[in-house]
């Protein structure tokens, strides 16, 4: 009964929960709705893959370099974007994965362009590659725990409160002594670092990368959608969303092509926004209160 197919779904559920949870830190608490998280995800994945496949550098070092590179990029590109709020912030974030994809497609000596990078499979802890899917489940679960822990820590902590204050009324928060750019920058850095780690895990698990598979807008949409379905701005929301949607997505992609599948995604997105904007967690809380 427990075969690779089901184990694969478990791994992907955890990976998506972690990615969506990282996104939720920015969007759910800070109101910074990024539609470009696939840029962070892709940089994390590509850094490990390039270092390992081209130069034989251990993925462990790749992970660290990837996180460093992603956070540096995140700081560099998000700083000017903080001048924009709401939808305009989202607009700009949407552009970055597109630029990254152009870059990955054309920087052939490094990324091998559109043909993509296959990571040579040499199992072992030193290469972070495993024969058993259980090891990947463990690794992905660990990442979910880290993301969940970070969110919990933020949820009740000072940073979370600052962020919510800035999200709800920037001027009022500022007059209370909160530095909006500082807290936004901090949460963006954390979110980017965790997303980059998700990208690393994805690369180590799938062992093949090409520009559209990591930088596609669909990845950013999926990351956002799972949090939204589970409950935006709650620590548990992204996990609930991923547990509900990833297996469903597995079934859908088995029977349907890309078009109809995303059609369903879009409809779910719109339906959630119109009917249950607080997601499953929100609906559950409301039900318990009554």
């Amino acid at each position, binding site marked *: 009964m427990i075969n690779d197919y089901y184990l694969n779904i478990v791994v992907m559920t955890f990976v998506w929960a972690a990615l969506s949870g990282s996104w939720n830190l920015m969007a759910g608490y800070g109101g910074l709705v990024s539609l470009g998280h696939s840029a962070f995800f892709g940089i994390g994945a590509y850094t490990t893959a390039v270092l390992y496949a081209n130069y034989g550098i251990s993925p462990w070092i790749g992970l660290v370099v990837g996180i460093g590179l992603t956070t540096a990029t995140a700081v560099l590109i998000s700083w000017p974007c903080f*001048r924009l709020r709401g939808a*305009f912030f989202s*607009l700009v974030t949407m552009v970055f994965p597109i630029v990254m994809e152009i870059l990955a497609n054309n920087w052939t000596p490094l990324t091998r362009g559109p043909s993509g990078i296959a990571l040579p499979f040499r199992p072992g802890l030193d290469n972070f590659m495993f024969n058993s899917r259980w090891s990947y489940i463990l690794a992905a679960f660990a990442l979910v725990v880290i993301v969940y822990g970070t969110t919990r820590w933020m949820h009740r902590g000072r940073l979370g409160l600052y962020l919510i204050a800035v999200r709800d009324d920037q001027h009022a928060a500022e007059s209370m002594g909160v530095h909006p750019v500082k807290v936004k920058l901090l949460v963006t850095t954390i979110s980017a670092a965790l997303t980059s780690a998700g990208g690393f895990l994805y690369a180590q698990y799938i062992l093949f990368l090409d520009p559209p598979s990591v930088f596609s807008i669909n990845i950013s949409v999926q990351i956002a959608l799972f949090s*939204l379905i589970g409950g935006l701005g709650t620590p548990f929301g992204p996990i609930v969303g991923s547990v509900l949607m990833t297996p469903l997505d597995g079934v859908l992609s088995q029977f349907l092509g890309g078009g109809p599948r995303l059609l369903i995604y879009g409809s779910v997105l719109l339906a959630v926004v119109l009917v249950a904007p607080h997601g499953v967690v929100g609906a559950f809380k409301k039900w318990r209160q009554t």
Partner: protein
Amino acid sequence: MLAILPQLLVSGILIGGVYALASVGLTLIFGVLRIVNFAQGEFIMLAMFGAFWINYLWGIDPYVSALAVVPAMFLLGLLVERFVIQRILTAPHSMQIFATFGISVILQNLALTLWGPDYRSVTTAYTSKAYSVAGLSISATSLFAFIPAVLMAAGLIAFLHLTRDGRALRALVQNRYAATLMGVDTRRLNQLAFGCGIACAAISGCILTPMYYTFPTVAVDLIVTSFVVVVLGGMGSVLGALVGGLIIGVAQTLTGFYLSVEFKDAIALLLFIVILLVRPQGLFGRAGTEEMGMK
């Protein structure tokens, strides 16, 4: 290299007209409703498919088919406004983003499901025609796109300044609350603005059909550029969209020729960031506008 500069400028201005055309609806909807319509490109795509099928089935010229496509899209716009936009006007902005983004995902993949991912094109008598003026070659399709773009912007500006509804719309752009107190029927004007915004998308779709490929993800090419244009011109400003479109058109043509075709989109992004840093309200926007839309 420099001898070709006048030609590049002309081509850039003409393609800029197309960008302006695609951006006018976006800026109108944002100005009045304070909603960024992420699905604008998809509405253009739908209109392109409309024009394509009318041409394919009955051989009618895409410019003529606008007479049917534009009213149909206007009605679609009213429906979308009634069932989606109206319900999210006061929602947190993350929900507004997801609502219009959801519409864009739905429309794009509806087209993909119905018509497949193929690139289709309409061939007309003037598709590859070009005029030669003073040693410069001007393609007929881009000229035919440029003229209506300018006319449409002019018409819209005239409508906004000369008619009663237009003045009410401008009042809404300036101060929604005060306009409501003065007895402006916000509900009806919201519908009008969204319908007109989508109708603008439909016009640009029909005009783009003879010069561009029609395919479900065409919006991805268009939307980034039109957002840059809207931000550059100043959000909510029709004149800004026109001028912004021309600037981006010229900038892209020059980069495409002197640097590399791949960097055409990158230059738009670069301009985007420079504008944000130097003048976030855009060329024709009022100071503070960039903040008004967000809360």
